[in-house]
């Protein structure tokens, strides 16, 4: 199949790009462009998860009459609170740090927002192919030709089933990669082209989230709460968010930097501990958890964003790392980079030149846009938090005063390299111990991963090969003694388990169908031997998330 512009990924970046292209087409006329959006989820928004508090600046530009068009806004932000938590108490910040002030912003469900955006895109007649995952990039030398979708109908033993359908090559003049945080295609691009050559290493966090129905009257709609401190240690990056979508429906989440040093730390347990804090427990008591999910976040900031333009290709959204970790916002940046990518692509095609030199105009547009003016000043903030909570907060404070000026660019490292090894002599039994931050679960307020995963609605065709590729035999040899099989801890969906052979040798069991597509394993594995590839369909059903 051949198109003019192929957009890979139907999230806020990809859909904004599609919509912007349609608008440019209408406004400027000329030979109609064929545009296609590929989305791996069964329906738009199914894999979209975020807090989320939306900065509407990009939305206002893309769809000025978004309210009239029924954009799903849960609540306008009314009140901001930031708390520092200790195990039993909370201390409110008397002044909300400016980046965390959300007046004028909107609490939304990203899942519903993306569904609505997709409707706008389809209303323009743009092909939105949901349920199709792009498996590989098609390249010729340094030129992006397009993508190849995954084969369908392969059994778990690798044989073709009677329903087998081979993947399809989709070629395009320009491919815009919007495949999300740690996107599998962008990862491939970074490997095959020197896009990250002079950039700082990418850094990530994982966000775990639940939706709760609670008795009314405890918190007003539009309340935004952020917390720092407990249950994370000083050197661990992260914190929580609570967004009141209504007075009886909460979006609740916990973010942990994927750069912690303790291999026996379990981010999901940290989320449980957080819920056990008296303030949170009181908020949720007698309520009901209705949905769960997890997703990684690109935290590294401006200096870690790779080169985003190449022959025949562009990268936008979370795939490029366009997230403001200080404001905890990325949706508006995904939308804006998607729009700018569309503009650059449109101009390049009209000029009949889709080379990297021509597509560099995308970077120029980004540099001239609010994307740079927002991200550049906070480019070192996440790296400062690499030195601990207080260092990070202090640096953030100074940063606000100096407009981000700092004598040096702070260095960061890929998070998985910061994981410490276990003291020698532990053997491989460490995995059988409880996580270092384990707490008891009561299945009403706190949950085990398997119960939580049930509420993500995730399901996959069972008879297919595992989509989590583990490239070496470390699981049965050195990982146990060195790290105690941290995959069992850092995966928030109980995908990885260590079984024992008769002679005690550890064997990795992959429960691939539990996967919620968060990408944590691809990021955090200390040996960097796990590759996440798109399964044949399936994945979470993040309704309302």
């Amino acid at each position: 199949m051949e198109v003019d512009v192929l957009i890979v990924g139907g999230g806020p970046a990809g859909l904004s790009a599609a919509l912007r292209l349609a608008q440019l087409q209408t406004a400027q006329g000329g030979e109609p462009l064929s545009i296609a959006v590929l989305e791996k989820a069964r329906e738009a928004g199914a894999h979209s998860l975020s807090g989320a508090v939306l900065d509407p600046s990009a939305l206002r530009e893309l769809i000025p009459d978004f309210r009239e068009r029924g954009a799903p806004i849960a609540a306008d932000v009314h009140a901001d609170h930031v708390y520092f938590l200790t195990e039993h108490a909370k201390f409110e910040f008397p002044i909300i740090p400016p980046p965390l002030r959300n007046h004028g912003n909107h609490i939304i469900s990203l899942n519903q927002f993306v569904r609505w955006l997709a409707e706008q895109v389809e209303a323009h007649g743009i092909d939105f192919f949901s349920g199709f995952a792009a498996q590989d990039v098609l390249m010729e030398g340094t030129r992006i030709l397009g993508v190849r979708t995954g084969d369908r109908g392969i059994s778990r033993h690798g044989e073709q089933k009677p329903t087998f359908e081979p993947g399809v090559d989709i070629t395009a003049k320009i491919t815009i990669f919007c495949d999300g945080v740690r996107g599998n295609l962008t990862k491939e691009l970074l490997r095959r082209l020197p896009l990250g050559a002079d950039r700082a290493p990418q850094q990530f966090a994982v966000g775990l989230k639940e939706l709760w129905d609670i008795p009314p009257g405890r918190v007003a709609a539009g309340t935004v709460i952020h917390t720092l401190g407990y249950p994370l240690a000083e050197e661990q990056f992260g914190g929580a968010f609570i967004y009141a979508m209504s007075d009886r429906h909460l979006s609740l989440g916990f973010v942990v930097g994927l750069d912690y040093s303790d291999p026996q730390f379990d981010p999901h347990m940290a989320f449980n501990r957080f819920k056990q804090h008296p303030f949170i427990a009181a908020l949720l008591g007698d309520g009901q958890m209705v949905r769960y999910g997890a997703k990684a976040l690109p935290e590294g900031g401006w200096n870690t964003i790779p080169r985003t333009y190449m022959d025949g290709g562009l990268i936008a959204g979370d795939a490029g790392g366009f997230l403001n970790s200080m404001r905890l916002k990325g949706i508006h940046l995904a939308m804006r980079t998607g729009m700018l990518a569309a503009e650059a692509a449109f101009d390049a095609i009209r000029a009949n030149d889709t080379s990297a030199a021509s597509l560099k105009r995308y970077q120029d547009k980004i540099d001239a846009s609010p994307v740079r003016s927002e991200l550049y000043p906070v480019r070192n903030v996440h790296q400062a938090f690499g030195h601990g909570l207080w260092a990070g907060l202090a640096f953030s404070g100074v940063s606000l005063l100096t407009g981000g000026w700092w004598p040096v660019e702070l260095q960061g490292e890929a998070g998985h390299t910061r994981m410490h090894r276990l003291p020698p002599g532990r053997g491989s039994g460490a995995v059988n111990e409880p996580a270092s931050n384990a707490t008891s679960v009561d299945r009403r307020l706190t949950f085990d991963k398997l119960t939580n995963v049930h509420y993500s609605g995730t399901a996959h065709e069972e008879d297919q090969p595992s989509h989590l590729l583990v490239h070496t035999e470390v699981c049965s040899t050195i990982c146990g003694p060195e790290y105690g099989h941290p995959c069992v801890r850092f995966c928030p969906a109980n995908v990885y388990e260590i079984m024992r052979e008769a002679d005690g040798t550890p064997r990795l069991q992959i429960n691939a169908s539990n996967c919620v597509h968060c990408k944590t394993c691809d990021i955090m594995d200390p040996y960097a031997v796990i590759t996440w590839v798109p399964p044949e369909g399936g994945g979470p059903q993040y309704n309302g998330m």
Partner: protein
Amino acid sequence: MILVVAEQREGRLNRATWEAIAAAQALSAEGVPVQVVVLGGTVATTAQEIAAAGVGDVIAVEHVSLATYTPDAFTTAMRQVVDKIAPTFVLLPHTYQTRDFAPMLAARMRKSLVTDVTGINGNGAAATFIRPMFQGKLAAEVRPQGEPPFLVSVQIGAYRADAVRKGNAAAVTSMSVVIDASAIRQQPDAPFQEARQAVDLSQADRIVSVGRGIKSQDNIAIAKNLATAMGAEIAASRPICDNGWLPMERQIGSSGQTVAPKLYVALGISGAIQHLVGMKGSRTIVAINKDADAPIFEVADYGIVGDLFEVVPAIVNELEKG
């Protein structure tokens, strides 16, 4: 008056008929009689069998065109029966045969049919009926609309055949019906049995299911002994099938089969929600697990906290004794 439609094949009464009669008795208020109609080629034996139980008068409807079941013939016959008798309710067991003709009868008479009923609230024309919806995730209370007679099919196993209140032997009367054989559009061959390729646990009355607590593939033999002693099928939670210890068709749960047998025995199964959604509709659930906090105990009717390797052989012993 409540009319129950019996089901028989070649002179053998379908046990579910008694369940429908039990439901009719639950539905009938003081003084409201229950009658049972039997359709077939010759139905003397089955009609007598029902009459002997003394649940109500029995109507035998015999016709050559009813000797072999077809929806056309049965609908035509039942229409005449219902028109003549004018019951308030017509109750049938929710069998494959009922599903095949009862909606046709309801549509032809322009009357309401409520299917797959598991409970009844109230008596008389104002009664409401409980039935499952959304694959058992929800229970719906529904009220038939329009005028009686209201047709109701009763879920197999929802009412107990042995709960039927018996009385003095009742009378059997014959009723004749007119059926135009040439108007019957189905021509069925004789039924036959086929060796089933796939395991269909949803048809099993009793299931013994194993989880991680069984520890090894060899130990499944212990569970199989119990299954044999109970006349049950063997099944498993996901980890067992993932290990290849039992075939995937034996898996119960959100990624396997959903079952609701009369008896479900969970051995060494913790009760993760993915498993529970596949079996919590079972009528009687027995759980044996070492861990007193295992979630399986929340849905079990009977629970034993103990070592299944000791308890299960003891149960087999008991069963073989009795």
